């Protein structure tokens, strides 16, 4: 018997953070402008220590002002999507659940687009708009997951194939809504929106939004983490969990709201990036087991690693043109989804 201890948890997280750091350094190095690894590492440490004035070189601008913000965005979005995926999988008791597959991301996208339209019509200031879009995305996500949950109910119990089917139908319905809405947006906005929808980290975001995003992530992921041990028991079923002392309704509402916030935030800045929330928690389970006290932080860091890698691929493989990062994750994720589906039915 070797239960998880705080020491082991922190040790593993530190390890993963080490991997993330290496990935970030490599991602900073790769791109059209070549930079040296040594210079990068030195500069990154300086930035982390708060001595950004010490950066001397001419590539400082490219690395710190263009590549780094994009990487930071990738870290927060990847972590949010993965934690949301792990939570949905436990909450809905379905290993194939993920914000994208269940249509929750599309719901968030509809909410975000509606918010954009409202912003245009009301001519809001950019600061207000920066708050309204994530809020719209959160509402879209929350409503969609509630709808998909109800669709998945059969005789008061969640039926996992009905749930998946309901999610897929919801996603395709919402895509139609999005196309409809986009034609009303029209003109110059259209190309940007299409790119955003496919999942995209290349649009520069204001620094304040990055702060909002990080803050939202910490609060929502923290809230989910307080239920980590309860989620372990929920895997065996809600009745069993209740008999072991889990306050099931409370856990359900906390995880539901927090996972909707995470999805909404991620979608509002990066569109619908698929499969990260599916793939990463499964990888982490293979490595660390299915204890949520370990799985949730591991998924957060793992999601950051995976999305930074995917985004680096997206901007380098077809350089000088940018691929959509959503296309990269779908290329890898969709076959993985099929694999999981086949294995489960075997």
């Amino acid at each position, binding site marked *: 018997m070797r*239960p998880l201890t705080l020491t082991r948890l922190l040790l593993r997280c530190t390890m993963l953070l080490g991997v993330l750091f290496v990935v970030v350094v490599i991602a900073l190095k790769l791109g059209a402008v070549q930079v040296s690894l040594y210079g990068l590492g030195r500069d990154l440490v300086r930035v982390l220590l708060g001595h950004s004035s010490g950066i001397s070189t001419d590539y400082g601008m490219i690395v710190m002002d263009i590549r780094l913000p994009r990487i930071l965005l990738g870290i927060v979005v990847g972590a949010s999507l993965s934690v949301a995926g792990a939570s949905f999988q436990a909450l809905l008791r379905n290993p194939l659940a993920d914000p994208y597959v269940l249509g929750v991301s599309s719901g968030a996208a509809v909410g975000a687009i509606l918010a954009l339209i409202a912003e245009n019509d009301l001519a809001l200031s950019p600061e207000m708009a920066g708050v309204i879009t994530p809020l719209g995305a959160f509402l879209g996500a929350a409503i969609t997951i509630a709808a998909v949950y109800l669709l998945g109910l059969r005789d008061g119990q969640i039926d996992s194939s009905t749930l998946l089917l309901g999610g897929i139908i919801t996603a395709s319905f919402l895509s139609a809504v999005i196309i409809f809405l986009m034609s009303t947006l029209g003109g110059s906005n259209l190309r940007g929106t299409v790119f955003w929808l496919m999942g995209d980290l290349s649009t520069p975001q204001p620094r304040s939004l990055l702060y909002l995003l990080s803050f939202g992530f910490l609060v929502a992921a923290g809230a989910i983490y307080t*239920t980590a041990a309860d989620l*372990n028991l929920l895997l065996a*079923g809600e009745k*069993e969990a*209740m*008999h*072991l*002392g889990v306050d099931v309704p409370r856990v359900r509402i906390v995880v539901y709201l927090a996972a909707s916030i995470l999805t909404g935030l991620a979608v509002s800045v990066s569109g619908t990036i698929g499969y990260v929330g599916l793939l990463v928690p499964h990888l982490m389970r293979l490595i660390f087991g299915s204890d949520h006290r370990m799985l949730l932080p591991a998924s957060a860091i793992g999601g950051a690693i995976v999305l930074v890698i995917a985004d680096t691929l997206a901007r380098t493989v077809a350089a000088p043109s940018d691929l959509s990062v959503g296309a990269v994750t779908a290329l890898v994720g969709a076959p993985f989804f099929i694999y999981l589906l086949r294995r489960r039915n075997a």
Partner: protein
Amino acid sequence: MSSPHRTPMPSAEQPRTNSNIRLSVEQVSYAYTPHTSQAPLFTLEALSFQAKPGEIVAILGPNACGKSTLLKLISGALEPLSGRIFLNGFVTHTLPTKTRAQRIAMVQQESALLFPSRAWEFVLQGRHPYGGGVRFETEEDVTIATNALTQVGANHLSNRWMDKISGGEKQRIILARALAQQPLLLLLDEPTLHLDIGAQVDLLDSLRRLATTNRYTVVVVTHELNLAGEYADQVVLLQKGKCLRVGPPASVFQRELLEQVFQAPLSVEMTSSGRPRVTLFSNK
């Protein structure tokens, strides 16, 4: 949580205690009504019984007689329509979820796991009511869980995956998890359902031993006549939501009564140990 039409309940500070009685089911009834406007689909008529520490109570009856409903009522998961169920003087369904899980452990029909876990992880879950949230298991938790595994004779399974062990072994691990809860009351819903005969006897022998040594009150739902006759101190006989008889097996196991309840010709004889034994015959 008390409804106006009910007599006032004893407050949490002053539990009603009766030194020797642990579980007291008093005039408890229930109605299952899926739609409030319609007549109930199923009713459990008022019934009463009491059990002491160390006693095994078997709730016996054919399918759909209300056995599992009665067990859910006792577990506190359902609220009785009328009457009350006391565990050491506290009304079970008003206990906070966590407190309830420290006093009542439920062993349900096979549970499916979404992701595989090891047997020891599963048993440690029994310590959840004493912690929860992000708390990590202590040395004490590990000791208690290890003892639980020892008590059901499953120490050698500790490191096995739950989806790679046999039905009987799995049932023992589930029982060990219930023991790790350190309950006063151990509830089992058809625990022998998917077990072969050897494993059935093993399980009930362990229950008998545990009830005696740990002073658990055990309530088992079953339709296995002979297992109930052999192991129970008390039998609650149910038919279509009605309690027909409560008492020691020797008094409940009467040929006419059992034939009528189970709709099968049978004979009852007493063994040398004073336990009834039932033999079934063909209808032809």
